[in-house]
């Protein structure tokens, strides 16, 4: 079985285009790998088929690894729609004192999760009138700590 250099180029481009159809973000690396093999074939036309496929495999793997080295789960542009939501970190005013075993009440300047006032819980006792920060959402209760 012989592969011509142009077969690799065409195959590579096809794979890169296929990435658009299958948005899985891995086909593109195989396409780029194929392009690389095609270029290598131009320089060394005597490459064996085994070597070609091996190069393709290694090149693709290397590109994927490289990509994940470069790519980092950077900050989210928006937290809307995530489970924690944009609520975490919001500062509100405690209108009802909260203690470890007593629920309090916290009020926000603008409605949060569909309501201005929420029943809240906390690990430490906080007196009414303090500013508190939301640290977690637990069902219909907000967990707060002193801001």
């Amino acid at each position, binding site marked *: *079985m012989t592969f011509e250099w142009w077969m690799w180029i065409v195959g590579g481009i096809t794979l890169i285009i296929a990435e658009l159809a299958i*948005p*899985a*973000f*891995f086909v593109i*690396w*195989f396409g780029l790998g194929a392009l690389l093999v095609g270029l290598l074939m131009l320089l060394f036309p005597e490459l064996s*088929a*085994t070597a070609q*496929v*091996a190069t*393709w*495999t290694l090149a*693709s*793997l290397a590109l*994927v690894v490289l990509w*994940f080295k470069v*790519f980092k*789960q950077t900050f*989210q542009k*928006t937290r809307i*729609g*995530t*489970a*924690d*939501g944009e609520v975490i970190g919001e500062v509100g005013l405690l209108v009802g004192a909260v203690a470890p075993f007593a629920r309090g009440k916290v009020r926000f300047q603008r409605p949060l*999760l*569909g*309501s201005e006032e929420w*029943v809240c819980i906390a690990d430490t006792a906080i007196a009414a009138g303090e500013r508190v920060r939301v640290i977690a*959402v*637990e*069902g*219909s*209760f907000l967990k707060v700590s002193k801001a």
Partner: protein
Amino acid sequence: MEFSAGFVVVLALLAFVAVTIAKGVRIVPQGEEWIVERLGKYHGTLKPGLNIVIPYLDKVAYQLVTKDIILDVQEQEVITRDNAVILTNAIAFIKVTDPVKAVYGITDFSEAIRNLIMTTLRSIVGEMELDEALSSRDKIKARLRESIADEAVDWGLTVKSVEIQDIKPSESMQRAMEMQAAAERERKAVVIRAEGAKQAAILEAEARLESAKRDANAQVMLAEASAEAIRRITAAIGDQTGPMSYMLGEKYIQALERMGEKDNAKVVVLPADLQEAVKGLFGRRS
């Protein structure tokens, strides 16, 4: 064409790499979070964006939507405390705030919350009178939210709001209420009409009383005038009977004349001695 052993091995390696990467790279769209299980146990939650899992070990077990979920609570019949049947349905907005609890805490949280809202709504409205239930949606809403709160914690959900969409009496109830309203109007109409009649009667009686008073006054005044006239004539005449006889005679003759003019009195008998006849009217005083 023949395959060397090396070529086949490399080809197999390529297939392995391709499949591994395909299964290992996971792109989670914004608005979703995926639950990953490693060998059947919960391992982690994939956040939106590019994620890597280890194929063969990890499995994306659940794909959860973390946007607000619209829950349509179907229409149901509710019996109020005063035994009236009303139809209500509601709409709820919930949000998954803890994907792990939402997945492992309950089999189907949407169905659970929907049923919970239905039963809670029934119990809240069941404690109310019909009129109260129809007019206090806000109260129902607040209590609904309160009662669902405890379960919501266990299931990692936040109930953002529950709205009563419709709250209306059942058809037979509606008919009865309409009849009641119509009867009420009719009662008012009858009362108003009766009041009108009463007012009219009173006014009429007052009018009669007033006119009787005036009639009486008129009679009294007439009598007084007659008395005055007689007094004056008496004063003018003094002791003499002549002028009186003359006046009487004149009147007498005038009366006779009028009698003569009538068609049905053809025969008028005149006394011959007119003077004596007039005198007789005085009862022979002189």
